[in-house]
């Protein structure tokens, strides 16, 4: 009796193991997204997993340039990429081929959400009772004000913050805003050149603040939130959605400056930020001013492209929209596909050409 019993026990355990495995096995879906999407995508993830219990979303968040770099240069198997600047996808993914296939990392993208650039601050911030949409540039340029900017080499909000100064100068025809903010603050200067058609800001290869600088630079804009909350910063350039999500105080920037208004699309094109060095293998990035547009794609290296398409379809659904907007993140009324013909069919079905 002892031998059959032992075998029975073992087989039961085996069956239990298999049974539990069948019940829990999920398809991992790796999503890399911009730091400003942490909160809304957290809620999207939860709702998506409830709807698709066999899929486990594994999300990581970085500055948008870093998001793409994880796919194209660190070769991580990522299923969905969502950046705060849709233009980064063609710039860094269409133009970069996968070594295994010699095909681009992506050949389509969808602009799905917008935002507005703004200044976040706390009630205790210096000149908090004084700052407004007219005097913001002058206030944050004061030497005793600590102002946080994301590193424009890694994060879209960083180069957008630089654009804001150039746009404010053009809007006000006051060409004395940029210098008080940036001059003598950095070991190697960020420079501005005001051409006839285009104002160009150039970011040096080494972006390093001097010891007494009033500028604080961090790798991603989301890192500035903690410094604001701790009182180490007075102000930080952030997206309005992020400011609302963290219950911070906000200075709305003028429409010509906040990069969020469709009506000002042409105005925004008057500025460009150049990285003054070869940051990537074959690309010297240049970021032209345009209305903020978040982009999403599925890398060609994705291991679960079908589930990735399901995730994006959910994001673009009414339910996804309401979740995003509940977290103060504005979606576009109409999603814009770049290279519609290359979209997965499930996404083509919900897009207009």
């Amino acid at each position, binding site marked *: 009796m002892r*031998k059959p019993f032992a075998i029975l026990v*073992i087989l039961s355990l*085996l069956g239990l*193991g*298999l049974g*539990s*495995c069948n019940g*829990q*096995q*999920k398809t*991992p879906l*790796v999503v890399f997204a911009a*730091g400003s999407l*942490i909160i809304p995508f957290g809620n999207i993830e939860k709702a998506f997993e409830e709807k698709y219990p066999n899929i*486990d979303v*594994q999300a*990581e*968040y*970085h*500055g948008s340039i*870093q998001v793409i770099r994880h796919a194209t*240069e660190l*070769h*991580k*198997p990522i299923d969905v990429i969502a950046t705060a600047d849709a233009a980064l996808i063609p710039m860094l993914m269409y133009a970069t081929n996968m070594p295994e296939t010699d095909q681009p990392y992506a050949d389509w993208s969808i602009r799905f959400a917008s935002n507005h650039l703004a200044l976040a601050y706390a009630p205790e911030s210096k000149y908090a009772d004084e700052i407004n949409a007219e005097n913001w540039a002058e206030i944050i340029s004061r030497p005793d004000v600590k102002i946080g900017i994301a590193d424009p080499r*890694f*994060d879209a909000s960083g180069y957008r913050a630089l654009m804001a100064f150039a746009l404010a100068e053009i809007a006000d025809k006051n*060409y*004395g805003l940029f*210098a008080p903010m940036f001059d003598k603050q950095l*070991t*190697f200067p960020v*420079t*501005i*050149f*005001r*051409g*006839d058609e285009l104002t*160009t800001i*150039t970011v*040096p*290869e*080494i972006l*390093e603040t001097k010891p007494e600088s009033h500028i604080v630079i*961090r*790798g*991603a804009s*989301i*890192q500035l939130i*903690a*410094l604001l909350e*701790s009182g*180490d910063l007075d102000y930080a350039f952030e997206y309005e959605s992020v400011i609302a999500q963290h219950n911070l105080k906000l200075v709305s920037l003028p429409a010509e400056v906040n990069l969020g208004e469709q009506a000002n699309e042409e105005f925004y094109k008057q500025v460009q930020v*150049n990285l003054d*060095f*070869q*940051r*990537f*293998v*074959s690309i010297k990035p240049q970021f032209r001013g345009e209305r903020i547009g978040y982009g999403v794609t599925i890398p060609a290296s994705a291991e679960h492209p079908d589930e990735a398409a399901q995730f994006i379809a959910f994001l673009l659904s009414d339910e996804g929209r309401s979740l995003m907007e509940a977290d103060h993140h504005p979606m576009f009324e109409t999603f814009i596909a770049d290279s519609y013909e290359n979209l997965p069919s499930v996404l083509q079905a919900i897009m207009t050409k």
Partner: protein
Amino acid sequence: MKPYLRLILSGALLLALTFTFAACSGETQVAPSATEAPVEATSAPTEAAMPVLEIVGLTETKSLTLEEIKALPVTEGYAGIKSSTGKITPPVMVKGVALKDLAEFIGGMDETAGFNVVAEDGYSITYSFDQLQNGAFIAYDPATGDELKNPVELTAILAYEVDGKPLDSKQDGTLRLAIVSAELNQVTDGHWAVKWVNKLEVKSLGEEWVLQLDGAISKPTDRVSIESCGAPQCHGSSWTDDKGQEWAGVPLYYFVGSVDDEIAHEGPAFNRTLADAGYSVDVIAADGYTVTFDAARVQYNKDIIVAYKVNENPLPDDFFPLRLVGSDLDKKEMAGMIAQIKVGLEPLPATAEPAPAALSEADATLTVSGSVNQSLFLNEAALRAMEVLTINAEHPKNGKQDFDGVSLNVLLDLAGVKDGATTLLVTASDGYTSEVSLSDVRACTDCLLGFTDTLEKFNLVMPNLPSNVWAKDVVKIEVK
């Protein structure tokens, strides 16, 4: 059932059971990633002799095998990372070579240079001198992720071991960057932790350029010479555009005057007689775009400027390195990317450049030698035949004074400093030597080899530099 068969059966069943549970041991199973791959034998005998790192200095390039890297001074400590959105990878013990030691190994660098770290796939990031020398990185508490308020001593290293083992070659490559400290008390931003490193490069962050001047005489003129000429107390001039941008440079007629006859610098360099007789001046951009002037329009005209800076910075790409600007120009005449200025005069047959008279070494009272294209043997007469500048400068100990002399940079240009030189070794008549950084001298447009009241006795005049480099009774300047 025989005992050994029972044992085999039990083992097989347990193994199956183990695999069954292991296969679903977490709902986060990801397809096998590089991190789970077995470590490749990076030290396999066939690969041990293969170079794994190219290291480029200002003067030389070396290729190193892993064993050669391991033979360099070792730095080890704890390194971890914090992702941009707060995910912490806790510190582990890593071992490698400090970047500052590697920079020193390839000839050194100073604050005007960066240390570029390049990965196998071409991705690169440049570390500053301050980061290499002083560990100037933002560090975070590994437990909370909060920024550390009190500085921790940090060192950037090129790591080849983690926890006593070679790096996982698929995840990290053979070499990767790590920012280490002596204790388990910090993590740093993930973007510094470059993986798959295969090249390091000391990189000058300033870009050099040359303007070709052709007329009765021809001469290429480099950035340092033009910036020296454009110093405010020399021939500098500026113009402010309608957007408040200040363009600084040298009036075009100075360039014309330097090649219109054999007199390049001294005295009335611009030949008015030739200008009155008439000739053309072509300012030619790199793409061939040409703006042509009559000599009469250029003559002593300070409102036509060849600018090399705007708002105190080098010109933007569309105009770099030089642009014509000024109130006497219309927009289409403001050519950028100037590469050549051509004066419509017949070239003189003889050598018109007033180079110092050729002396024998025995006749010289001052020698410029070392890492140069041609050694200079000079005496006071030869030096005084060159352009003599008068400046008012503050001696660190003696206060403000007037000094006469010849631009130290002009002397270095005449000798032709070879690429990679970093230092001037200055020797006095009593054998006393002092060193000064070449980059400091190159940045010092006012530095002179100064004349004294005593014939054939020269002192260095080094404004804004420490007193120890104001060498007296100089007899030799050796470029190293």
